[in-house]
């Protein structure tokens, strides 16, 4: 294996465990180092990402003779005036333009995906696919109706509305339990997958364990000696 790739893989493990020391709950220089590295590299990548997009569309488009990109670039440059307090008003136009277009295309489709389709999918024939189907679909409809009634603010909650809202609240906690478990599965899966990439192929295992223990010990030492908080950012 090439030395550079090997070094990269070792460095990955090191910087990851440095960042994991956050869990200890106190600042230390290892963590600050990892954090600032990430910030710098992440920001630099965002710059390249934006530049690529501008190049692939505006620059290549201009070369192909599409005049529309001239005002686009001017508007984009106007955006930069945002940083100067005195001339920041110049940036209002591109902001108005991008936000306006964005609002237009978001709400026109969100009303379908988030409102109409979701209601429509709740209205289904209940009786033609057996008892289980009837039960499930009833639970969904009742759940949505009662939970929603809990979140109505401009009428007073009393009478049947109160029953419905109370039931909805309990139903919501049942749902929270399920959603919490699903979320835990997701985060755990991510963590396991991440650790897997440091444990396989098998040659990595001694390095990973060694670095983990080293970082752990250094972190404890930094905390005990009081240097941790002092040297961190």
């Amino acid at each position: 294996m090439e030395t550079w790739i090997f070094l990269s893989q070792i460095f990955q493990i090191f910087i990851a465990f440095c960042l994991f020391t956050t869990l200890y709950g106190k600042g230390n220089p290892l963590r600050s180092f990892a954090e600032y590295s990430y910030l710098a590299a992440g920001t630099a990548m965002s710059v390249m990402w934006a530049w690529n997009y501008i190049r692939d569309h505006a620059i290549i488009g201009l070369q192909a003779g599409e005049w529309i990109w001239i005002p686009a670039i001017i508007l984009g440059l106007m955006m930069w005036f945002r940083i100067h307090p005195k001339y920041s008003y110049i940036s209002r136009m591109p902001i108005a333009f991008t936000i306006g277009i964005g609002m237009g295309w978001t709400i026109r489709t969100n009303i379908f995906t988030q409102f109409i389709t979701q209601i429509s999918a709740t209205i289904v024939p209940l009786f033609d696919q057996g008892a289980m189907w009837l039960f499930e679909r009833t639970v969904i409809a009742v759940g949505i109706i009662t939970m929603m009634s809990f979140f109505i603010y401009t009428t007073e909650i009393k009478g049947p509305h109160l029953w419905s809202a109370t039931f909805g609240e309990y139903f919501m906690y049942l749902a929270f339990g399920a959603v919490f478990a699903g979320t835990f599965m997701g985060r755990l899966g991510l963590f396991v997958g991440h650790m897997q990439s440091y444990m396989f192929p098998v040659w990595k295992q001694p390095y990973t364990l060694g670095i983990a223990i080293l970082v752990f010990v250094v972190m404890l030492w930094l905390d005990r000696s009081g240097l941790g908080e002092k040297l961190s950012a």
Partner: protein
Amino acid sequence: MGKEDFNLLKWMATYDKRWTYLLLFILVLLPMIYPIGMPISVSELTKEYYEQLETLEEGDIVLDSWSTEYSGYMELKPGMISSHKYFIKNGIKLFICLGHPEGLALVQALLDEELKSYMEKYDYTYGEDYIILGTALPNQAATLAMATDFQGSVKVDWKGDSIQGTFLDRIETGADIDMISDYTTGAGNPGLINHIVLTFGTPMIQNQIGVSLPGSLANKDAGLITGLLASTRGGSELELLVNEPGPGLIAMDAFTLGHYLLIIFIVIGNIGYFGWAKRVSEERERTTIR
């Protein structure tokens, strides 16, 4: 003796949670050194996803959208690998669109490392069978533009080479895409549903992280997406279905132990609560759930 019991119950109600962090670390790393090989079952959701894959025929064009950071890839890896193995094995044409700056690292991790030998085995080549369009779908606006006028909005691949003369010539609008295969960490790119699925009725399958699963389930129930692969668990089930065992199945040991550890600590917390905190009415742990 009685005093010691009392202390144990108190500990159960008030232990320092950093011990649980350390335990979780150990329980995840340990089965990777000493694998147990626990069995798993395949859920209906994954079976449906696989059936969707089976509707594809050789030469069909799939929009392969990677709207995930590198971190999300850690969770979606088993599903991504096995889905792509299916695509490669069955000669399905892919054009890969990245939805996140970190997508660049994914190309290297997935195509250059995980799938390289597999692609060589089935003679799956760049330009002919798959094309990487790079940052083609950074947002809804770009997705909309691509869906309505493909040739007008996409001209080059990720390295700036022209895409003319490839299988992408066959695409004029979103209607010419046979399927969308989305790997996402949440809303990802809502433009895919809003501007391609809703407008052209293109089937869309999704590999979703656990956190954003409820939203995707609602979309699946409403028919907006046709197949859903849930988190690492779904990915490892798909590994079984496409008969290509990979990282997902290995992860399942750690996965099982992590879940059991949480359940054990929930039980410990409850014993502590009823045995100590509630009795001395000194509940120190604070939460909304009351």
